[in-house]
C-alpha cells in the first residue's frame, strides 16, 4: 500500500495543500503535480544539478528531497525566480552571451548562479567555476556561462 501524507507548502509565493505519496521526490511533485516543468530531471542521484530549486532561500537538489519533507517550507522554482525578476539580470546575460543551447541545464544553472551572486560571490572566474561545478552542461562548454555570471557581478560591482 502506498503511504500518503498531507503537506502544506508555499510554492512561488502561493500556499497550497496536497496529498502526496511519501516516496515522491520534490522535483517530480513540482513537475507532475503542479505542472512547473521548468525544473528538470536528469540523473536522480544528485550529480547533474538539473533539478536545483530553492527551498527556504537555499538551493537544493529537487531529486534528493522528498515532497513530504517540504511540508511547511517555501519552495521557489525557476518560474518563481522569473516572475519576481530576481534572476532577470542573469537571464539577460545568459541570453546575450549565448550561455545556453538546448536549455536543459539552464533552470538549475540559473538557480545556482543566483545563489552565488546573492551570497556576495566575487567576480572571479575560478570561484564561479567552482560554484557551478555541481551543475552539468552538455552543450556550452561552460565558458559562456562563466562569462555571463562574471558579467553580472562585475556590472553590479561597478555600480
Amino acid at each position, binding site marked *: 500500500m502506498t503511504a500518503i501524507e498531507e503537506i502544506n507548502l508555499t510554492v512561488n509565493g502561493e500556499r497550497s495543500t496536497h496529498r502526496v505519496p511519501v*516516496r515522491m521526490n520534490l522535483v517530480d511533485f513540482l513537475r507532475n503535480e503542479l505542472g512547473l516543468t521548468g525544473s528538470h530531471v536528469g540523473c*536522480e542521484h*544528485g550529480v547533474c544539478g538539473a533539478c536545483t530549486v530553492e527551498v527556504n532561500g*537555499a538551493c537544493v537538489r529537487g531529486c534528493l528531497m522528498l515532497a513530504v*519533507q517540504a511540508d511547511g517550507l517555501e519552495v521557489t522554482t525557476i518560474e518563481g525566480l522569473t516572475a519576481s525578476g530576481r534572476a532577470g539580470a542573469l537571464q539577460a546575460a545568459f541570453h546575450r552571451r549565448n550561455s545556453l543551447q538546448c536549455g536543459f541545464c539552464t533552470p538549475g544553472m540559473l538557480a545556482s548562479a543566483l545563489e552565488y551572486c546573492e551570497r556576495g560571490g566575487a567576480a572571479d572566474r575560478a570561484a564561479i567555476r567552482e560554484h557551478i561545478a*555541481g551543475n552539468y552542461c552538455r552543450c556550452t562548454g561552460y565558458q559562456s556561462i562563466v562569462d555571463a555570471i562574471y558579467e553580472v557581478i562585475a556590472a553590479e560591482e561597478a555600480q
Partner: protein
Amino acid sequence: MKAAEFDYAKPRTVDEALAILASHEGEVRPIAGGQSLMPMMNFRLAQPDMLMDLNALEELQGIRDEGGFIIIGAMTRYRELECSELIAAHIPLICAALPHIAHAAIRNRGTIGGSIALADPAAEMPALMLALEATITVVSSRGVRRILADEFFLGLYETALADDEIITEIHVPRSKAPAHFAFCELARRHGDYAIVGIAITAQEIMPMRGLRVALFSVSDRPVRAVAIEQALENTSVGDAGAMKLAVQAIGSMAFQDDLNATDKTKLHLVGVLLKRALTELCT
C-alpha cells in the same frame, strides 16, 4: 530511478525517535540531509521499510561552546558549519575542508552526523573526526554511549553505531583543535570525492609535537597514520631524515585500490600530499 515504497515518520523529539527505532519491525532508516541516502534509495541500494526523518529534531541542531568542547549537533548542515563563527574561531580545520565537500546545493542540506554515520571511506568529515580527536555521542532506548572517533569507524560504510541508535552530537575538544592544522586532498574535479586526502593537527610545530595524521580514501575506512605521527614527532619540517622515515612509514601501511586509483598510486600520492600538508602546517 525512483525509491521503492516505504513508510514515513517525522518524530518531534529524540525520545519519540528512539521509541520508533525500538518498536518498529523491519528496517527503519534515519534520514538526515538525504544527500547520500536518497541516491542510495533511488538506485534501490537501500530499501528501508520506514524512513525516519530527523529534520524536526531540534535537540540535534546547533553548535555550542561548553566545558572545553565545541559541541556540534548531528543535524548541523555543512552550510551552517561554513557560516559558524564558533567553528571559524576554534576548529578552522573544518573550514579548510568544507569547500572540498560536494557542491553548494549539497552542502545546504548534507549534515555532519549523516556523513559520520555513513562512513564513506572517501569522505572528509570522518577523517577530520580522527584528526580532531572527536567523540561521537549516540543514543538508543538502551542509553547513551560516547564513542571515540578512533573506535567508531570499523570498515566500509561500517561503524560502531547499532541499528537502534542515532548520533546526537559530536564533541571536539578545544585543546585538540589548535591553530596548527593542514588539510589537502586530490580530486579529479572540484567537489568530487577525493582520490586521496590528508588532515593533520599538531599541538606544536617547532618542533612538531602532538601530531595527529588522518588519511582518507586510502582504505575501507578513514585511518590514523600512527606510524607517520611517530616518525615526525619532535622533528622539524624540512628535516630530510624524518621525512624519509615518514615516507617509509606510509610504505608500511596497507592501502586499497578503488575505482579511482591503485594502491600503488595512492601510496605515491599520500607521500606528495604529506609534504604539501606539512608545509601548510608550518606556515
